[in-house]
């Protein structure tokens, strides 16, 4: 075994992209060229992977438990949807950035309030924020379409060239590109000294304060970054489906994203990809197999994951990998 690296060298080592890290991207690009690829589902997976990645930053790395992350997803979705519907802001990329910014600001504001608490109180407050926003969206029917959803969203072709077609070709590349950029950002964050301090906060916030780390500032910062990322994911959903419903702010969405993260593995960057892909593919396949009873299968999978695979799917891979190494040694 090699001698442990100096902390700075360790960070530097993490920064370098290992070949295995390119695997999800190779798979995602390769999937497009499969003869029978399901691109609408693929786009949905990429969108949810981005949303799950944003939750991983706050929950997996910083230990902020949130049951209301759909609040930011929904803000982003409505921001992108509303400007396209009412202001004629139909250029997708700038609208996406705008939606992310709006969500980020919402993250700062709500973060300053809810992050003063922790544990169960924090859980309830994050949920309350999402519930209030959902009720607001439902009540402002003249603006948001209420329970009928925001219809009539028009989105321009990307770079004026690539129209969002029915087969989901453009949307797939669009979502993949956005996810890739977000992944680079997230990767830089978690492998930076700032990212390490987040892990420190997760492990022991009191001790982090004691060594002089501005815990609250760090938490609000990462909360805002995560909110912005979730907002971009929401905007992506709004633009690719050209429809926004109050469901984007629902407890169900907050729950789903949490499930995907737990399923894939928290605090691992790639858990978000594995979790969202497995969850959504399984949901799609099961609901085709049994349109009536598919939710039973999903429930069973979750119980099994929580009971037997605490580290999620990637945790299983890790365990197997360790065994192989030990067996070889």
């Amino acid at each position, binding site marked *: 075994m090699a001698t442990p690296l100096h902390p700075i060298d360790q960070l530097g080592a993490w920064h370098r992209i290992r070949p295995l890290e390119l695997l999800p991207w190779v798979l995602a690009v390769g999937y497009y060229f499969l003869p*029978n690829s*399901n*691109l*609408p*589902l693929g786009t*949905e997976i990429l969108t949810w992977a981005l949303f799950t990645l944003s939750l991983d930053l706050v929950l997996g790395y910083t230990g902020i438990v949130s049951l209301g992350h759909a609040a930011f997803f929904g803000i982003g979705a409505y921001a992108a949807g509303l400007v396209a519907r009412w202001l004629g802001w139909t250029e997708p990329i700038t609208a996406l950035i705008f939606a992310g910014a709006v969500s980020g600001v919402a993250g700062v504001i709500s973060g300053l309030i809810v992050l003063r608490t922790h544990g169960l109180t924090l859980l309830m407050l994050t949920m309350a924020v999402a519930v209030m926003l959902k009720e607001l969206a*439902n009540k402002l*029917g003249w603006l948001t379409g*209420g*329970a*009928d*959803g925001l*219809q009539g969203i028009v989105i321009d072709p990307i770079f004026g060239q690539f129209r969002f077609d*029915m*087969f*989901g070709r453009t949307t797939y590349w669009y979502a993949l590109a956005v996810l890739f950029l977000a992944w680079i950002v997230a990767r830089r964050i978690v492998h930076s000294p700032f990212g390490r301090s987040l892990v420190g906060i997760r492990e022991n916030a009191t001790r982090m304060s004691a060594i002089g780390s501005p815990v609250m500032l760090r938490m609000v910062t990462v909360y805002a970054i995560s909110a912005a990322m979730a907002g971009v994911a929401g905007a992506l*959903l709004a633009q690719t*489906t*050209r*429809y926004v*419903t*109050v*469901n*984007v702010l*629902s407890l169900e969405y907050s729950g789903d994203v949490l499930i995907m993260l737990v399923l894939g593995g928290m605090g691992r960057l790639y858990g978000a990809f594995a979790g969202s892909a497995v969850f959504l593919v399984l949901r799609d396949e099961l*609901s*085709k197999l049994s*349109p*009536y*009873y*598919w*939710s039973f299968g999903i429930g069973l999978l979750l119980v099994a994951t929580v009971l037997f695979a605490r580290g999620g799917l990637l945790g299983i891979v890790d365990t197997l990998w360790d065994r192989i190494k030990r067996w070889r040694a």
Partner: protein
Amino acid sequence: MTSKLKIIAAAALAAVFVQPVAADNVKVGIITTLSGPNASLGQQMDQAIKLYNKLHARDIAPHTVEIVLRDDTGPAPDVARRIAQELITRDRVNILGGVVFTPNAHAIAPLATEAKMPLVIMNAGTSVTTTLSPYFARVSFTLWQSSFPMGQWAHQAGIRSVFTAVTDYGPGHDAEAAFTKAFTEAGGKIAGSVRMPLANPDFVPFIQRAKDANPEAVFTFVPAGRQATAFMKAFGERGMREANIRLIGPGDIVTDEELPNMGDVPLGVVTMHHYSSVHDSPTNREFQAAWKKEYGPNAVPGFMAVGAWDGMAAIYHVIKQQNGKLDGDRTMALLKGWKHESPRGPIMIDPDTRDIVQNEYIRRVEKLGNALANIEIGTIPQVKDPWKVFNPPK
């Protein structure tokens, strides 16, 4: 040539001549709600579709129909849209059908237009829906169709003040607008109105508000099925009958299949609707008998089942007329003006609006034997969607 070969050649030749028509397999994508609190609605649809296929398969022989059934989980337009996209681009269905909830139909509209994919709407009843895509045709109903004449009837029946309580989404807004227009134009007064949330509503506070307003009647619309039953129970518990406040509305609030779950509360409730399971006609008796034979003596098909049943009849019609090869534009042309003797009475697809034209019946809930039933006490023949009459297409 050996004699054996001759026989084979002759047989092959005979086979070619005996079967002049190539058999086509028509794929029908059905989008409906099969899980969650509204699962019972999609189940009725699914049962009706299966039964229709079973009984009518030979009508389109040698062609066959393959149903691709998908669950949209409830009022979830995003899910409905993705499923429709999959059905069109991957399963390569020839025609779409189903859709319980209006928002889901609206989310599918741009796709149907782009893919020139006809959708036969078997339930979703908001008036504006059919205007959203030229490839939509509706065989179910609109809320205006029932609620507008309901407003006129209420005034004729001597009711002068009404409180309206509707679910806060498309069909609810339609029901409220239609009833209010007809009732106030006749000279009635709206004592107050509330809109109740679509998701997980608790009806008690809304009914209490209606009671406090002290109207002669409450007009209500909630989605058919379990929500209607919950509303009815809350209505009974708040003592509305003792307060002499009547309940009226479109037939969604007392659907035939939910009546057995409602206790005695709905007795005397008057509704306007297009279908009652005890409608007196040979077609309906035949339909009811077939249903009970298939699904048991206690199974009751409601308007959801009839919508799906007639939707399948429409789909079979276009398959037959096109000899198994469905084309989007041709299908729509065939649906326009299509006439049919439904279990609910005679129906037609309006060639101008692609919306349904049908009889509306005034019904009162009464005891029939041991069970409750919607007894028809009056008929308004061949009602067009009034909303489209007031808002003609530009």
